[in-house]
């Protein structure tokens, strides 16, 4: 299918926080109640529209379990966006965010857009992490933030789409070098003809700054 851009995402966070469920809800509009431990990497894809443009999201769902950490780390490279997920009913998954963030910052390109997600918002009665805590963490580290429920689908669309909007804005600002595939962005076939004008013309204030 023709698209203007392709953005590569990665979903990270502790095991059991609902990464695979978020992906499934976003791509298939389904919820999977039993936990199938992800033991490698799984892929999903969906088309969205931003600013009247077709954008294809290519999403890599990684394994959260500690023993797969070195494999998961090796997948950060070449992602334009990351969804960093914790479980609002498990404080330890929130406490581990700093480690995840350090890992992500170290192994990805510096312009990667990170969306912090507090998942399982449907389980209000079992909440251990206040929404304000999530907001504060995001503010402190320069992340976007949302609470979602992969079960009720609340905010799931928004989480994926808002991340894409942020990436799209960065492209408009010329922050991303869209010709470098290591940034997790590909220009679609229909766009390729105008690509040189986009790359060269728009990045006024930060031309070439996307290169790390």
């Amino acid at each position, binding site marked *: 299918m023709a698209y203007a851009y392709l953005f590569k995402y990665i979903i990270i966070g502790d095991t059991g926080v609902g990464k695979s469920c978020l992906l499934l809800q976003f791509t298939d509009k389904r919820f999977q109640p039993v936990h199938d431990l992800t033991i490698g990497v799984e892929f999903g894809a969906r088309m969205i529209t931003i600013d009247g443009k077709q954008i294809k999201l290519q999403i*890599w769902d990684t394994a959260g379990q500690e023993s797969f950490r070195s494999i998961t780390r090796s*997948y950060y*490279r*070449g992602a334009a966006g990351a969804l960093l997920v914790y479980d609002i009913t498990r404080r330890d998954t929130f406490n581990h965010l700093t480690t995840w963030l350090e890992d992500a910052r170290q192994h990805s390109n510096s312009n990667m857009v990170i969306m912090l997600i507090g998942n399982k918002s449907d389980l209000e009665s079992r909440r251990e992490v206040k929404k304000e805590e999530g907001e504060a963490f995001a503010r402190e580290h320069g992340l976007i933030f949302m609470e979602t429920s992969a079960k009720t689908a609340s905010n799931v669309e928004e989480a994926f789409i808002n991340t894409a909007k942020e990436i799209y804005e960065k492209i408009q600002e010329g922050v991303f070098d869209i010709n470098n595939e290591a940034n997790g962005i590909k220009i679609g076939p229909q766009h390729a003809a105008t690509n040189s004008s986009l790359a060269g013309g728009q990045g006024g204030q930060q031309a070439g700054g996307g290169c790390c």
Partner: protein
Amino acid sequence: MLTRVKSAVASFVGGIMAGSSDGEQPSGAELPHKFPYMRPAFLGLSPDEIECSADHIARPILILKETKRLPWATGYAEVINAGKSALNEDQACCEVIMVKKKPGAPSTPSKTPTAKRRSSLPNGEGLGLRESSESDGLLIHYWALFDGHAGSGAAVMASKLLQQHIIEQLQDVLDILRNLGSLPPTVLGEEPNHPGTPGTNRTLTRAASLRGAAGAPGSPSTPPPRFFTEKKIQHESLVIGALENAFKDMDSQIEREKAVYNISGGCTALVVAFILGKLYVANAGDSRAIIIRNGEIIPVSAEFTPESERQRLQFLGFMQPHLLGGEFTHLEFPRRVQRKEVGKKMLYRDFTMTGWAYKTIEDEDLRFPLIYGEGKKARVMATIGVTRGLGDHDLKVHDSNIYIKPFLSCCPEVRVYNLTQYEHGADDVLVMGTDGLWDVLSNEEVSESVTSFLANCDPDDLHRYTMAAQDLVMRARGVLRDRGWRITNDRLGSGDDISVYIIPLMNSLWTTPYFTSLHRA
């Protein structure tokens, strides 16, 4: 594999055939594809997933999905190359097949095989196989790896069709294979030999046998007496022959269908087939299989490369010099001979030698050596680094009309491992891998890492072999650092496509009802 053809061509061009137009191979690029590019069927990937997998930057390691199983809980993992070719040129196939007799007359071969094929069984051993009266069939477990070069066409086609040829070959000898009680008859349709009564009159005096050869008189009503000492052919040899002929048929089919389809390149093939209690390992190329039993390494294949097959290739060049096109010499020298060295004595070796000797350099010796380069860089006619496999019918020396195919063999070496002869524990496995694995990890390193990985797994976790395969591919791929892909001790990781099966050999996995019922039958 692509670079192994390309870079050689480049250096060759710089060597003796510099200054040329682009020597395009007649590729049939305008013809339709026989099969589109794909990943192994058992991975069950969507087009989107296939697109994701072809990421040369992050190089995702693909494993079996949660919902898929391979027979015996076999583990599988693969990763794409680091950018040398757009697509992953390795291919794989794994199936459990019930070979059944062809319909109609039992001994007239028909073209369509009627084997029941099941790919990626829902839960290891196929449900439903039981119903299909296995009493007259032969159950085969089949694992195959193909490593393509100069295009993915041949590898994809072989991954789809090689098992069909194996089925057809086995169908021809099905009744004989199922009748383990008596040796395969020498001539079909005659009284079978009974091993219980080893022919007392088989071993005759030379004189008697010569008389027999001259045409022994015999009454037409009674079976003629045997005058010759006769080789006893075991059932195992019939399976080996079937595998060998299947490879040959596959290669012929590629050649035939190149006329109507675009089937690019060539491929190596490594097959493991479990038939009647034995593992048959058929290898044509530079993939490798080893068995790890109780920590001990048992190699069950050998690689076919310009170095390992030097003498065969040199002999062919010697016997049929026209195949060398006047451009190559079948002799090997430690380095290229220079014109100013003509008349001097230089080290060389011929097809009759494994050691070296001196010969006086003649003009002819200035030709490019048929085998040149060392180790992974060794090439046949400066073009290809692997000497057995399927396809490559169009492959020519760059910018010339010299075909490489006559020097390549599609014949596999088949080795047999009798599974029933040994006790196998949960950590005893057969590891199959393409050269992407073995180029960077030794047998010992592979054995060590698989063994220690499995030891740290829950023995009841059926994903353990999948996770071990993923771990092994990760070790061979390494991680991307500033100076490329690196593995342990800062050694260079493999930038090639890497594909790996880890097949558990634990007896309880393959002594399934189907297996045992077959033996009763």
